[in-house]
């Protein structure tokens, strides 16, 4: 059921919120082998459903998301619940406060059904780097669900919730959405408050949404978007009403196709699938044009320098002193730090902390971090220039469909290349969305990415709704 239908149904008492919660819990139970959840809040969700029903029958309006069931990535704080980040080091950490997005969703009437599995501290592209084990793709459990927000994608895909929150640093929503056939949006940097999102790379991180339709994605973003005084980097830019802008005619949009995103390394079937859609758009009257984005080739390197540098600092607080895991049997402070962090973090997290520490070190800072920030600015300029010509940019979301579990885990460089089409949006701070674009002959879905200038999410929804209609 779409969120708008849920709203109608629960208000006319044609659907029981409690029954929907039971159904969701059953889905979670049936799909437990996919390992999508780190925590399930069965009792709390039931209780919340009852409360909402009572409010409704008392004639109150609990909000625009009344009874909407949501799963939350386990790096977003819910007061009184554990925030594990799928890490041993935070396995038992209970957050004392709600993230701003959680507070807003709660006030809008949403129900939180559970926390979802992910790559540890959101570092990964397959949700295999989890202390709690890999997340599996519902379409074929031998394949990955993508990452790092793999659990949130699976939760939506199996019908365990109506929508889910994920987080992005370099493609962590769009890529799993592409691998599982969902809509997934990475909003503009600053569009959604990061307060309560456990930081991986502060200048790139952004909370986003998974849903089954563009409309649902927009409905959730509508609630969580907007300035928050607790996050200085959240923008004071007005949030337009997505529901009214979503049906604008797509023909007014100028669409750019960057050549570099359709070059070597892209699966032929995916290329064909994406171009089929853009051809159709052109046929229906859209203005579609190819163009160059030459700096794309530096995006991955730039991304991994900036992200790891910030991560090395952001993750310094997990030292065993105040909360979380502390290694036992140590003799002094230095050993406590070393042992706690060696045992508490997984391999990929340690790799990135070391990389980040290295690129910030005296003597290397200018060559790596500073240079990367300069390249980042150039990439941003290049994109902004492109947006002077095109309203949106369309690309594939990933070069391939989902890969097999274990296939790339021992080869970090190949794994990092899975983000090749998505990281640019994070580096430039713009918004981007994944839309289901078809099924590969291997039986797995693939996605189409739309990018729009900063704070123009409505364009993503506008074109997204069109493509959705074309697909059905």
């Amino acid at each position: 059921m779409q969120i708008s239908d849920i709203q109608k149904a629960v208000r006319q008492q044609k659907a029981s919120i409690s029954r929907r919660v039971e159904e969701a819990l059953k889905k979670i139970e049936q799909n437990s082998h996919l390992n999508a959840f780190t925590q399930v809040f069965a009792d709390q969700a039931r209780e919340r459903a009852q409360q909402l029903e009572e409010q409704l029958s008392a004639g109150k309006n609990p909000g625009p998301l009344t009874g909407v069931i949501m799963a939350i990535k386990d790096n977003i704080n819910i007061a009184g619940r554990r925030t594990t980040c799928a890490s041993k080091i935070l396995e038992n950490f209970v957050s004392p406060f709600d993230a701003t997005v959680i507070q807003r969703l709660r006030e809008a009437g949403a129900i939180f059904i559970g926390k979802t599995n992910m790559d540890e501290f959101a570092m990964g592209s397959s949700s295999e780097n989890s202390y709690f084990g890999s997340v599996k793709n519902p379409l074929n459990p031998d394949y990955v669900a993508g990452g790092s927000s793999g659990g949130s994608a699976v939760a939506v895909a199996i019908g365990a919730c109506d929508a889910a929150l994920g987080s992005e640093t370099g493609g962590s929503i769009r890529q799993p959405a592409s691998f599982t056939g969902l809509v997934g949006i990475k909003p503009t940097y600053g569009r959604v408050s990061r307060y309560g999102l456990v930081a991986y790379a502060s200048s790139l991180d952004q909370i986003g949404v998974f849903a089954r339709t563009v409309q649902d994605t927009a409905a959730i973003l509508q609630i969580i978007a907007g300035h928050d005084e607790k996050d200085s980097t959240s923008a004071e830019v007005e949030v337009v009403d997505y529901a009214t802008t979503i049906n604008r005619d797509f023909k007014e949009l100028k669409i750019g196709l960057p050549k570099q995103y359709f070059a070597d390394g892209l699966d032929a079937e995916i290329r064909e699938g994406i171009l089929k859609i853009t051809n159709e758009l052109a046929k229906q009257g859209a203005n579609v044009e190819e163009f160059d984005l030459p700096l794309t080739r530096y995006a991955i390197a730039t991304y991994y320098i900036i992200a790891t540098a910030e991560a090395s600092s952001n993750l310094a607080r997990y030292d065993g002193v105040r909360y979380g895991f502390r290694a036992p049997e140590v003799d002094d402070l230095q050993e406590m730090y070393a042992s706690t962090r060696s045992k508490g973090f997984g391999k990929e997290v340690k790799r990135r902390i070391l990389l980040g520490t290295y690129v910030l070190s005296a003597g290397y800072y200018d060559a790596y971090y500073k240079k990367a920030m300069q390249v980042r600015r150039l990439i941003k300029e290049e994109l902004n220039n492109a947006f002077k010509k095109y309203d949106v940019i369309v690309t594939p979301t990933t070069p391939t469909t989902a890969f097999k579990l274990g296939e790339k885990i021992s080869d970090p460089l190949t794994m990092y290349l899975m983000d090749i089409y998505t990281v640019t949006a994070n580096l430039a701070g713009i918004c981007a969305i994944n839309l289901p674009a078809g099924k590969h002959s291997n039986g797995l879905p693939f996605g189409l990415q739309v990018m729009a200038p900063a704070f123009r999410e409505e364009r993503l929804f506008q074109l997204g709704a069109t493509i959705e209609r074309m697909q059905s």
Partner: protein
Amino acid sequence: MEYEAIIGLEVHTQLLTETKIFCGCSTKFGAEPNSQTCPVCLGMPGVLPVLNKKVVEFAVLLGLATNCQIRRSNRFARKNYFYPDLPKGYQISQFEEPICENGYLEIETEQGKKRIGLIRIHMEEDAGKSVHDESYVEANETLIDLNRCGVPLLEIVSAPDIRSPQEAHAYLTQLRQLVRYLGISDGNMEEGSFRCDANISVRPVGQQKFGTRTELKNMNSFAHVQKALEYEIERQTELLKDGKSVEQQTLLWDADKNIAQPMRGKEESHDYRYFPEPDLVPVHIDVAWFDKIKQSLPELPQEKFERFLNQYQLPEYDVRLLTENREVADYFEKVAALFDDFKMISNWMLGEIARVLNEQKISINQLPLKPDKLADLLQAIRKKVVSTSAAKKVFDFLLSNDLSVEQAIEKLGLKQISDESEIEQFVERVIAQHPAEVESFKAGKTKVIGFLVGQVMKLSRGKANPQLVNQLLQKKLKA
């Protein structure tokens, strides 16, 4: 060969904001450990800093007062290091783009005025405290109190322009006076709200190149700074004289033993991996905000000093003392608005009032006798309602009694007798009782008059107007 010292000072001063620099916690001193904390200053997963604007304003005030260039667009950076009292594993500070740069402070030296350059002033957060107190902890344990964590600091870095411990002292005194004048810090070194580290090297006079420097830490009072610098200058000079070289290192001042000891090597070798703080947007001070801050800049010590000299025509010595502290100067001016014998006010403030403040260890704002009452009292002296000596009794009485000056004089029965016939009676009795002294006066030893005046005063229990007494005595004796 003659040697000279090259000294640069780094001062950290805690700001008197109500709340911490990046969260809403109180900055009050002395609360129950960890009671003034929240997820933000505890560095919980998912928190973000939000800048307290007051800190920017205080930094700009100090920058303006020290002739700095103010960077209207500046930004924070992370200083990364592990320590248990640093919850995030980094300190939010400023690095490449500090808020104030290139200023100076003028100090008085024996050779006259001298400018000490300020390289930079930047904003940062304080760390918490590790508690090793045996009454709290068992052996080998350390407790952490994070109340202080996130309290705003300004770091003020001087150029290596200081040449002696005396100059260092003058610089610190000046700087502390300034932060107090501006009302941005209490400047209390003993309580740790004003801390000083020193960089120091020695070179033969005439040599251009700086020698190898050492860093001196852990000096908890002005006296310690001076002693530590003297010690270190001598140590380095001796080394150079002996043809040895100075090792670059950090030394901790041991105030009990009066020596500086090297810090352990490991804690010294930090690579702080500074990078711009991504959780905060650059601080932009627009024209309107800047002007507003500028307008709130109070009169500075030197300006006040010069104005007092001109306006009140007092000796330099008096003005120096009266303007040393902004509250004292304010007190003086409040009295001066009501009473125009400025020297008399000054005498009372530097005499009686200074004595009371000193004895009771209070600040002038805590003095129960408010400026208007002092003005009334001085007025009473001038109008000869009380004698100066009686006025001192009234003054003391008013410190612990909330009465008007008139009521106090009444209550103490100290109203001065200026009635000639009444005084005449005392005078006649004294002359009668002291024939010997009267004789010597008449014989030309006029100094004896002082004794006789004293006797009259005694007889009147201090209430007689001494000038009248003197006049009447002279008249009677010469008659």
